[in-house]
């Protein structure tokens, strides 16, 4: 059994390295001054990419649009999802599974299909009625996203509804409440936490969505579509800076939520209530979700301030100078070699900059042909070319 536990642990470690490795590396590149997002070679520690990120007008405009659309989607998808869950709870089994299939389908249908069908339908409606105001990116994106985002909300509500004791509603009715009062005073308060999480999930889904939105948003752009077009047309570490921000927010949210959940569990008298953490008044206060949140925000605020004061220009200038020197050196070497070859053979000139150009082409532009093997005759030259040659970007 012990051997298996060991294997399980090792596997879990490998699995989570795969989950977090890419994120950690991406986040790290946000602090490297290299124009291309990478960790090696490390040039200078910088916080400049954050400034560059906030200076990107298209992204910031997209952010505003995303917020508007997100609010619209949450306001509509959460009630629709709730209605779906309630409808399913009252249907006879056969009809229930039929409706469930129909309502869950939008999650499975490719996002592009949803996007296309939305603009096609509303295009036709617009032509048919002349209601041109309907045909705009905000409206179409909200409508298109609702189609599948509501299903996410519904899944949350179904899970919560399954834990609802139906005799609670009956008890309320029996005690003289009208059905409407029972709904408002008993069922809705019970669903309240689910409404919160459904709102969060739908907001996230709306914010993140690309496949549907890229069609429905028409000439506008959301945060995600702006991000995608930026990634497609050349990248720089300001995107990594964005990732750092999102990861930080996520971690703060997750930790605060964890503190909240633990505390709730402790208060309802679980195993955690006997933990010494909650017995000691100091640690008890420290583990309050509000305090946890405040501490995290303070620490991050401090780091952000310190980072904004950091000046990497001296280091960057030095690196730039070094690069120029190196380039000059390489060029001189090349020239010397060509001259030497010409002098020796006087016939064909070899392809210039082969090792240099090949590796260089591979950087950043996936369209470039596969890097040819460096043609230097010596083994030393090959290794050298592979590791250190592609110093220059752009």
């Amino acid at each position, binding site marked *: 059994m012990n051997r298996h536990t060991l294997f399980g642990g090792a596997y879990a470690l490998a699995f989570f390295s795969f*989950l977090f490795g890419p994120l950690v590396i991406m986040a790290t590149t946000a602090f490297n001054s290299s124009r291309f997002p*990478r960790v090696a070679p490390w040039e200078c520690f910088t916080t400049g990419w954050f400034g560059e990120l906030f200076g990107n007008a298209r992204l910031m405009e997209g952010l505003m649009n995303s917020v508007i659309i997100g609010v619209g989607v949450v306001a509509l998808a959460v009630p629709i999802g709730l209605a779906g869950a309630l409808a399913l709870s009252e249907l006879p089994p056969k009809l229930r599974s039929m409706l469930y299939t129909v309502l869950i389908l939008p999650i499975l249908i490719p996002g592009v299909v949803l996007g296309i*069908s939305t603009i096609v339908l509303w295009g036709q409606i617009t032509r048919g009625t002349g209601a041109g105001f309907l045909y705009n990116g905000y409206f179409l994106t909200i409508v298109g996203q609702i189609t599948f985002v509501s299903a996410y909300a519904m899944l949350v509500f179904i899970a919560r509804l399954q834990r609802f004791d139906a005799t609670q509603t009956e008890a309320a*009715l029996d005690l003289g409440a009208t*059905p*409407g009062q029972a709904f408002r005073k008993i069922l809705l308060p019970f669903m309240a936490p689910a409404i919160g999480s459904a709102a969060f999930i739908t907001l996230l889904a709306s914010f993140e969505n690309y496949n549907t939105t*890229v069609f429905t948003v028409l000439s506008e752009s959301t945060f995600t579509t702006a991000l995608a077009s930026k990634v497609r047309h050349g990248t720089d570490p300001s995107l990594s800076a964005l990732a750092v921000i999102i990861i930080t927010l996520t971690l703060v949210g997750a930790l605060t939520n964890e503190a909240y959940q633990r505390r709730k569990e402790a208060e309802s008298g679980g195993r955690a209530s006997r933990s010494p953490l909650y017995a000691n008044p100091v640690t008890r206060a420290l583990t309050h979700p509000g305090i946890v949140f405040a501490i995290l925000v303070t620490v991050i605020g401090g780091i952000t301030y310190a980072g904004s004061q950091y000046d990497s220009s001296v280091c960057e200038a030095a690196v730039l100078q070094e690069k120029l020197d190196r380039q000059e050196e390489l060029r001189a070497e090349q020239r010397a070699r060509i001259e030497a070859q010409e002098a020796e053979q006087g016939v064909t000139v070899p392809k210039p900059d082969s090792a240099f150009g*090949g590796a260089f082409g591979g*950087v950043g532009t*996936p369209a470039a042909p596969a890097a040819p093997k460096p043609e230097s005759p010596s083994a030393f030259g090959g290794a050298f070319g592979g590791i250190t040659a592609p110093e220059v970007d752009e």
Partner: protein
Amino acid sequence: MKQLKLAYTTLLAKHGMGAALFVAISVSLWVVLFITLPQLSMLDYSFRFNLPADQLGTDADHYTLDQYRSFFFNNDGSVNTLDIMILVRTLIAALIVTVIDVLICYPIAYILAHGAKGVAARLMVIGLIIPYWINEILRAFAFRVLFGSTGVVNTWGMQMGLWDAPVDFIRADVALYCGLAYAYILLMVFPMYNAIEALDHTQVEAARDMGAPLWRVHWRVVLPMAKPGIVSGATMVFMLTAGALAAPQILGGPSSLWFTQLIYQWFNESSNWPRGSAYAVVLLVTCITFVLLMMRVFKVSVGEIGK
């Protein structure tokens, strides 16, 4: 219809007029206006010519199979192998990604359900969810950083002497497969976890006690229990992978188009909506047929999905 009415009256009696109307109206709107009508409208569009606005509604505007014909055949009548192959490649790639996800997620789902306890289990759940909160585009971008020619993989690989020159992982689609498999891990782990968790752990212990080797315990005891979860997760991963657009755009090599990119081109670059609609219909029908076929093979119903 009668049953619908009965459900409505139950709602009315239980939750009152306001709630019953709210449910009836919302669900009808959702099913009719948001789910059904757009699909019908797209289907209708796919049987039309791509006409300029002033010719719509004239005699030239009639139904045609033209858009579908051009998917299967070139103008000269030869088979349109280019587009068909893109579809086939997309489906195969989606299948590969799905299988990869099943393989890497099964052990984690099992460990989460029956191995990890307390803090470790909570940390694992949080660890699974956090990457899912990061924007899809950024997750793809992370893999571009990782697999670029000066990316970490190339740098370390060459430092360790595994290969001499930077390998173009993007062209080889390695980055794309990794990125897609990564993107939908959560959708695979949780249905599997839910299914495996329902298994009484003493069954595993009993099987072990009777001397069955670990692989046999999994094959005979755990896997049958996990099957609905696996099919549910696999369906979602397959459909989302086949329908992915952002990851192929960001991580795809120049020579390997995803079918969704083709649709995107017809819409946004060629402005040929009927053609794009027809291609979208082709994608939708193929994917759904494929999934239903798989469900038939593995004897699982649609109702299991999303649980």
